[in-house]
């Protein structure tokens, strides 16, 4: 028996037991994202002629290619792979990074790993168990996708399932490296998440430029490989070997790094800090704790804005006056009122602004939930035993969360304007126009933490639901009443369309304020969680 791996089985069982709720939910979300598509695609594009037209339009439209990637076939299966494949791969990547970091660096950071490593646990066992847990989850997702789509063509279903699972495992291996490099689990997750985001942006930029997805940028991105598997459209099985090779190389690196460090230590070690501190208030502390993450989000949003802005003209030139495209853009949430270049550019920018705003909702949730992490991490208790009121404490973090979300949307708008090269003001108005909806989600997160702290993490589900409704909801022809559940559905899409009315902005901002007031009232009245 290899003693390096001793205890892997026990650790894997521990990991699966700890993930018994989280992992199945992730797996279902990944699988359902794909499996919900064929039925609705069939109802919208029922005839072969309709699908052919869709394919022609999509191939001609750079902006839609940027979002979904190129279409390689007009069968329902191929359209499903096109519409859902990249997003499912992206979600599988996030799922994998969460699982891997959770069972490696997070365990070490908390000190729990020390206890485990003192038992009959080999040096390589924790990392191996974490990777096996990720493999289990990705295999389950792949299996569900394959089984669910088998009726549309066994080869295509298998290719898509394997592609999504392989994408997940590739990012699992990347997370395994990040977990060796950083001392904090938060940073390891952020680092891997940034790579996944970069993979998406590279693929989007590449696909916007090349109708067949043949751009070098696409080929750099693992998410680009996923579309090049071409499920349901003359599958290219050899692309899967790329995943295997890249994952294997990363795993070798991760194990090599792991073998060269001590438990709890890292390659990016903490430097000594100042012997004296200037922090003098709970607000200053909140800013200090959150500024690093905000800086990362700011750079990411600015960069994404520039990239998407730069794609605008290329995206619209190819289309011209095409009624069908307008319909599609409208379906995706844009408002293409009249035909013409400017309108299409506006619609594209509006779509991008809406997309970035929904991602900003994830930022505000993470920033608000810092309160919950501070509380359950026992750091809030000694802090509040000082002359710090709960409102001050919460106020500091909420100010960062609400101000920070405004900042990143402002930067995204600036980026869009700069990348597009005209009407920076309009682009900024477009992204900032979505701010009230982001705030509503942030206020809901604060209310969850204030009223039912044990279920504060449900705020992620709120943001995720808004994201899902905005992203795939329109394509699924969901009833308006369901789509209206998302606060984003109530804001006009800018730029373009008629002059927006102020009412929805005011109403959503007021709603956010009311929720926030309720959150703070509840927080003041309740017991601090032990």
């Amino acid at each position, binding site marked *: 028996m290899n003693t390096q791996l001793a205890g892997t089985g026990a650790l894997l069982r521990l990991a699966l037991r700890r993930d018994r709720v989280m992992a199945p939910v992730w797996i279902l979300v990944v699988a359902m994202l794909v499996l919900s598509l064929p039925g609705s695609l069939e109802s919208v594009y029922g005839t072969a002629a309709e699908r052919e037209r869709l394919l022609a339009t999509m191939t001609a439209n750079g902006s839609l290619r940027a979002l979904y990637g190129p279409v390689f076939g007009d069968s329902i299966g191929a359209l499903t792979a096109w519409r859902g494949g990249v997003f499912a791969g992206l979600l599988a990547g996030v799922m994998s990074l969460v699982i891997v970091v959770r069972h490696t660096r997070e365990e070490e*950071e908390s000190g729990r790993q020390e206890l485990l490593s003192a038992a009959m646990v080999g040096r390589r066992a924790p990392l191996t168990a974490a990777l096996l847990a990720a493999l289990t989850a990705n295999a389950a997702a792949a299996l569900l996708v394959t089984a669910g789509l088998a009726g549309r063509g066994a080869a295509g279903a298998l290719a898509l399932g394997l592609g999504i699972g392989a994408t997940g495992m590739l990012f699992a291996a990347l997370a395994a490296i990040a977990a060796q490099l950083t*001392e*904090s689990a938060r940073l390891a997750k952020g680092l891997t998440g940034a790579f996944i985001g970069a993979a998406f942006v590279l693929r989007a930029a590449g696909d916007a430029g090349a109708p067949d997805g043949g751009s070098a940028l696409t080929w750099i991105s693992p998410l680009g490989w996923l579309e090049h598997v071409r499920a349901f459209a003359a599958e290219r099985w050899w692309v899967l070997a790329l995943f295997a090779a890249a994952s294997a190389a990363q795993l070798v690196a991760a194990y090599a790094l792991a073998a060269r460090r001590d438990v709890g230590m890292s390659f990016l070690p*903490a*430097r*000594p*800090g*100042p*012997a*004296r*501190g*200037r*922090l*003098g*208030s*709970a607000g200053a*502390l909140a800013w*200090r*704790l959150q500024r*690093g993450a905000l800086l990362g989000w700011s750079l990411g949003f600015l960069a994404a804005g520039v990239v998407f802005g730069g794609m605008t003209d290329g995206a619209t030139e190819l289309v011209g006056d095409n009624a069908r495209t307008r319909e599609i853009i409208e379906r995706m949430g844009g408002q293409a009122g009249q035909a013409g270049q400017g309108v299409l550019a506006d619609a594209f920018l509006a779509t991008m602004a809406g997309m970035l705003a929904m991602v900003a909702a994830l930022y505000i949730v993470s920033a608000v939930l810092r309160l919950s992490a501070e509380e359950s*991490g*026992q*750091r809030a*208790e*000694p*802090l*509040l*035993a*000082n*002359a*710090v*009121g709960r409102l001050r404490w919460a106020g500091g973090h909420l100010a960062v969360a609400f101000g920070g979300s405004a900042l990143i949307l402002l930067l995204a708008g600036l980026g869009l304007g700069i990348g597009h090269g005209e009407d920076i003001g309009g682009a900024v108005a477009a992204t900032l126009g979505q701010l009230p909806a982001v705030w509503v989600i942030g206020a809901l997160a604060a209310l969850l933490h204030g009223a039912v702290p044990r279920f504060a993490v449900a705020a992620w589900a709120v943001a995720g639901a808004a994201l899902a409704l905005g992203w795939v909801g329109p394509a699924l022809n969901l009833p308006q009443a369901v789509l209206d559940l998302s606060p984003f559905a109530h804001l006009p899409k800018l730029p373009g369309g008629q002059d927006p009315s102020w009412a929805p902005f005011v109403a959503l901002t007021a709603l956010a304020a009311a929720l926030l007031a309720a959150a703070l009232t509840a927080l003041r*009245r*309740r*017991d*601090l969680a*032990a």
Partner: protein
Amino acid sequence: MTKAIRVAGLHKAFGRTHALDGLDLSVATGQVHGFLGPNGAGKSTAIRVLLGLLRADSGTAELLGGDPWADAVALHRRVAYVPGDVTLWRNLSGGEVIDLYGRLRGGLDRDRRAELTERFELDPTKKGRTYSKGNRQKVALVAAFASDVELLILDEPTSGLDPLMEEVFRGCVSEARAAGRTILLSSHILSEVEALCDRVSIIRKGRTVESGTLAELRHLTRTSISAELAGPPGAIAQLPGVHEVEVRGPRISLQADTDKLDAVLRSLAQSGVRSLTSSPPTLEELFLRHYANPGAVR
């Protein structure tokens, strides 16, 4: 004598668990008050109520003359708290945390901070994540003892400290008392309580079972006596307050209720005492007696 802490009939339930079930606690200003109890007795819950982190279901609690829930922020300016398990922010140095806590209380004595850092042998430049448990504890202790406050609430503050540091801690408590500060010391280390505390409260299952000075509490327990006698022990076993008599030849050993000692010694003297050793009840015995038999106060 003014009271720094006054708690009467405090109740607090979490779901079906009654963490506090009619707790009484009274701490006089300027004293070091030991707060003893087994794990899960409700010590930390009581402290969290006193700090306004939890809201009591019923009963009264008064901290430095104010309401710990309603006046929390104003009161906390005059209070320093050290939890039993200190968690620090990963990316903040120990020095930063000490200064932050000082500013968030009544203020920090610069010289005292430097002196305490030295005495506790704490490196204030290390980041939170890299401190060991004992060193995290020291960060909170330096912050507490260097703060300009009237009341220190210490919840098992020496867990993780080595014996040398434990000694430094005792010195700090004595100095704090000399400076007129009040200290509520929840602890499991009985020698520590014995050495430091003016008064002790023992709680069990959320209720106070005993409270008083150590001398008073000792009075309620038994003294062990063993003696070598010249003659037969007589009817000593029949005396009230005498327990566990064991006679082996001329040697006798027994336990006597401390308030009945006088009669026991007279009886022994009548038999002629050749040698005598007596040991006063230790706090351990006191402690064990209260923990072992539920409801037994005497």
